[in-house]
């Protein structure tokens, strides 16, 4: 029996323009997106395609020029700081560079404690907080006892990114936006991070949006793929459809230009 999947996030005509007059740049051009509960979606684009700007608008970090964003069917209202905080209980992010995601002056415990506070646990006894933090760390195969009271520079890149995932585990948002989560991670640690991210969906029912330029990654993790060029979605569909049988010439070119190992990589197309 098909279960009616809830529409979590959708946008209509979402547009972002930077600058004035002659220096106007159209970063995001009337984007329509529909995100359902429990989906893993990738937005694929090259640099300059507007995918990061789109991500920041979805997160509410930058303002929209035109268009609306609907969360769970209702128009999103983040006009006050309090409303923003409410919205951010439902949507969180992981960024590309694990090193710059941390405040270098704070111990890493602060990151996790902030999450507990955000979920209303500020008044909890310290022992209970430690319990929560240990649970979050073990979700990403890290030991809290080993990490507590350390500063970010004492951790490796992979550990820092996994700690970011632990943070998401603590916050339990409905939607997670992952902006190039593995592009700055070593190949050997990549699989671990992707596995943990997918676990968030499989065990916690989280909806995940990947922002990436790596088509291979998009193909590996996503149910649905959106291809973005110059601020517009040029193609969308299931991963198999878009990547194995692309319709649009831009998508086709993009996929042809990625080096392959099982198929012949045709160099004559450039």
């Amino acid at each position, binding site marked *: 029996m098909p279960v009616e999947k809830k529409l979590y996030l959708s946008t209509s005509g979402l547009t972002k323009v930077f600058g004035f007059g002659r220096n106007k740049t159209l970063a995001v051009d009337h984007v329509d997106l529909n995100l359902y509960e429990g989906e893993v979606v990738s937005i694929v684009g090259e640099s300059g395609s507007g995918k990061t700007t789109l991500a920041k608008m979805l997160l509410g970090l930058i303002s929209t020029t035109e268009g609306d964003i609907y969360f769970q069917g209702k128009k999103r209202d983040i006009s006050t700081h309090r409303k923003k905080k409410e919205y951010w209980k439902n949507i969180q992010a992981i960024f590309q560079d694990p090193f710059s995601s941390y405040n270098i002056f704070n111990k890493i415990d602060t990151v996790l404690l902030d999450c507990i506070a955000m979920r209303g646990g500020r008044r909890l006894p310290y022992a209970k907080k430690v319990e929560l933090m240990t649970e979050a760390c073990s979700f990403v195969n890290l030991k809290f006892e080993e990490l507590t009271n350390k500063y970010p520079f004492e951790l490796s890149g992979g550990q820092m990114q996994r700690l970011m995932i632990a943070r998401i585990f603590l916050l339990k948002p409905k939607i997670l936006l992952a902006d190039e989560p593995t592009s700055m991670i070593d190949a050997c640690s990549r699989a671990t991070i992707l596995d943990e991210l997918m676990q968030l969906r499989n065990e916690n029912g989280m909806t995940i949006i990947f922002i990436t330029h790596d088509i291979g990654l998009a193909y590996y993790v996503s149910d649905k793929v959106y291809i973005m060029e110059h601020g517009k979605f040029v193609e969308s569909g299931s991963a198999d459809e878009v990547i194995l049988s692309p319709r649009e010439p831009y998508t086709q070119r993009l996929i042809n230009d990625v*080096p392959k190992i099982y198929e012949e990589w045709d160099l004559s197309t450039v």
Partner: protein
Amino acid sequence: MSNAMLEVRELTTKYITRFGEDVYAVDHVSLKVEEGKTLGIAGESGCGKSTLALSLMGYYFPPLHYTSGEIIIDGHNISGMDPDVVRKMILGAEIAYIPQSAMNALNPTQKIIHFIEDVIQEHDLYVTKKDISDRARILFETLGLPAEVLQKYPVELSGGMKQRTVIAVSVLLLPKVLIADEPSSALDVTSQKMVIKMLRQLMETGLISSMIFITHELPLLYNVTDDIMVMYAGQIVEKGSAREIVFDPLHPYAKGLMGSIIVPEKGLRDVKLAAIPGVPPNLKNPPSGCRFAKRCKFARMECEAFSIPLRDIGGGRAYRCIIPEKELREIYAKEAYKNAR
């Protein structure tokens, strides 16, 4: 026996830190590149591949120091040569090096043609500007670059075009060996493809005799190189042909590395990606035994006891592990069966 264009024997180079410690970033590395062949060096950040590339030129900037070993280009031993002689006779003329983001080497206030004039006049004072211009134009056309580029300033060119220009300029003096360190990492996929195509052309037209290609992107390596060498913690852990290394790796690290490749190709959605926990060892105090042992799933007690030599199994294939080939293959087969269930 083919003519080895570049042969390296037991090359060891080190970094001397501010506190006077020695870090052996390249530890007794030996390799051979034949005429007309491309060698790829694969490995992750910190494995020593970029240091190896720098060391091969024979020109050392502190804190990088040459310790021991030989570098032989077309029969000519350049190791331990005087730096000024290296600069004048070797760099660019015998062996050329393209660092990552080489496009930043272009002087923003100089037209490309003037840049080329500087480069050539440094090596050959008596050549005329007209000669240089002709040579440059012919080379560019051969490589598929429009001749108008010569009259442009770097800021007028795209990233991919700049990178290709720099690569073209680096082969102007017709070096025998070209070393390319991540030549396409900073570019978008289309520009990347153009760079790769150009490198292939360089080999096919015979403008260069051999090439060493360094990257962390394995699918790229597979499509560009004939042979691949995998480096870990300053040592070579496996060598072989590209096909062998990518589809049939023997060393556990190489196996893990190849198992982490993601390509947008059919059937890849259901493959379980390999992950290797832990981090590479600190080269200030490298472990005495196998450097990968701490992270290796199949490590035994003997692995950490003594240093492991490179095991040659014929056909140009070698790997650094005490477990014999047959046994390794059995172990891998068992693992694959476990994962499939």
